């Protein structure tokens, strides 16, 4: 029992990060049909900027804020300098542009920062909390709580604000949205900015546990993408669910089956799910209601 609980804690913590990365994918996909493969670099920037600002003597909360600002600026710049000029191009071209952008961001980060692994202190101590015989780090609670707050805030924004409704309208039908006077270019810029912020927050929350370096983004983007596919690309709730399920799958496979094949187990389950439900767990059906 305590063993199962330990695996669940581990899976949820890792899964929450995948969920946030998947959420970033979803936002941009909805606004533009583009899978932004630079999403993992936002997570990297969140961690690395905080590490270096903190090391330079900036208090941790301020350093975190700075990191979010840098990631948002990077997201906006990515949109303005790379996506916007190629506006007419099809989605595949834009996706390739984001892959190029992610390599560029990583290269620049390598020059500005360094190639070593880093971390900064946990927010509220390092003493593990014992729950029913399993132990969880206080920072894991920060990750889970932080992810919940981000998801809730995003939901409120989407449902309750005019701008959020504009984003949803653009996601539903870009042409119709433009016809009713929604500035879809602004919505797309907004999606890149918010994705940057979410990615950076994920990076900040998780760095005390997982450590960070300029190369962490690549793998996170891959896992986050798998989570988004599993949940159903384009569905924010699906992205969160997909992330948590993927994290749990990995932890349970490592714990109960074999640590050597844990990634394989997770991906086999994903492939099986996509065979049965090609749209993902909570994805839109191919035929849209109008």
């Amino acid at each position, binding site marked *: 029992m305590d063993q199962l609980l330990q695996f669940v804690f581990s899976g949820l913590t890792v899964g929450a990060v995948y969920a946030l990365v998947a959420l970033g994918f979803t936002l941009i996909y909805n606004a533009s049909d583009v899978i932004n493969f630079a999403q993992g670099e936002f997570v990297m920037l969140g961690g690395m900027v905080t590490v270096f600002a903190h090391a330079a003597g900036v208090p941790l909360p301020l350093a975190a804020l700075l990191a979010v600002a840098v990631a948002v600026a990077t997201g906006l710049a990515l949109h303005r300098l790379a996506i916007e000029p190629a506006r007419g191009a099809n989605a595949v071209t834009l996706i390739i542009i984001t892959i190029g952008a992610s390599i560029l961001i990583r290269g620049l980060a390598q020059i500005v920062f360094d190639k070593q692994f880093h971390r900064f202190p946990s927010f509220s101590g390092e003493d593990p909390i014992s729950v029913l015989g399993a132990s969880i780090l206080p920072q894991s609670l920060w990750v889970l709580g932080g992810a919940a707050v981000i998801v809730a805030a995003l939901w409120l924004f989407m449902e309750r604000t005019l701008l959020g409704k504009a984003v949803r309208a653009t996601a539903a039908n870009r042409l119709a949205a433009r016809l009713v006077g929604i500035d879809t270019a602004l919505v797309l810029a907004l999606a890149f900015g918010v994705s940057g912020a979410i990615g950076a927050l994920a990076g900040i929350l998780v760095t005390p546990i997982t450590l960070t370096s300029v190369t962490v983004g690549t793998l996170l983007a891959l896992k986050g993408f798998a989570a988004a596919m599993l949940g159903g690309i384009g569905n924010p709730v699906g992205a969160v669910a997909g992330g948590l399920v993927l994290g749990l799958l990995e932890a349970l496979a490592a*714990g109960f089956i074999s640590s050597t094949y844990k990634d394989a187990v997770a991906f086999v389950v994903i492939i099986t799910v996509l065979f049965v439900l090609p749209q993902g767990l909570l994805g839109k059906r191919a035929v849209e209601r109008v």
Partner: protein
Amino acid sequence: MQRRQLIGGLAGAALLALATPSLAQAPIRIGSVLSITGPASFLGDPEARTLRLYIDRINQAGGVLGRRLELVLYDDGGDANRARTFATRLVEDDRVIAVVGGTTTGTSMAMIPVFEEAKIPFISLAGGIEIIEPVKPFTFKTPHTDKMACEKIFEDLKRRGLTRVGLISGTGGFGASMRNQCLRVAGNFGIQIVADERYGPGDTDMTPQLTRIRNVAGGVQAVINADFGQGPAIVTRNFAQLNMGVPLYQSHGVASRSFIELAGAAAEGVRLPAAALLVAEQLPDNDPQKRVVMEYKQLFESTQNQPVSTFGGHAYDGLMILVEAIKRANSTDGTKIRDAIRATRGFIGTGGVVNMSATDHMGLDLSAFRMIEIRGGTWKLID
């Protein structure tokens, strides 16, 4: 008076003229291919700094056989294909007489056939045992092998009376190779590997694997982690989180300051085998390596403005073994230098005391490794 000065000046010039022709002879070219950039840059960078530093010093002191040394250095970026291309260039274009370097086992293995065919002595700076086993006529290496790390850890376990051991290793090249070596030699020390867990290169949470090790039937008395980079830091933190309550051993792959920083308080009490260079100041004065490691450490740190690393030490050892062999061979002929390297006895380097032979092209024994414990956030020599 003027005349005297003139004569003095002439005599000086004549002396210089006598000395310079030998130095003006064609320099002795030593080649090197290192991974100065790329994923193994934390190994290759101190190696390159060390080679440049010591070649300059040797030249200031008059060179070797009265000739200057010239270093021809290429950066392979950690890519084995590029390493091989540069190896061919060293042989065919640069016409080097010997090569020191090959930062990783992968790049070294890619270059070996080139140097073997050209009959050029090659001293690798990589850890993998396959570089020198089976023995190749012109290939040597200076760093300890992962097999020795396993043996050193098992020796320590035996002394503490611990026999049931859990193994957790990364699936990367270093972790996988060390895991195999540990599984192979465990029996020789009466050690039982009762759990064998693995994790991927980018994994960020190893609590499931450690939970499995903790819950193994019959329990474990110690855990060994075979890997380098960020993985061991996360394992060490997870280990403390789960309050495993048994000793944790790491490998020489974590023997750098950054491991202690990343693992934080969780690193307390962790043991690892490492080269004497890591604890230079703590060596007793009668230790044969004391003088060598202190000199290297002081020179490196005062000129490079960064802490010394054991990897740069491997480059120092390789270069010095080569230079002494050239002097003994009194020749720049590849086969003669090879024979002289093979005859190296009692060479004291940063990695240990080296005794080469026709069947041992590394020449280190277990005494070259020191068992070290992390106490109070720093390395503590315990034997």
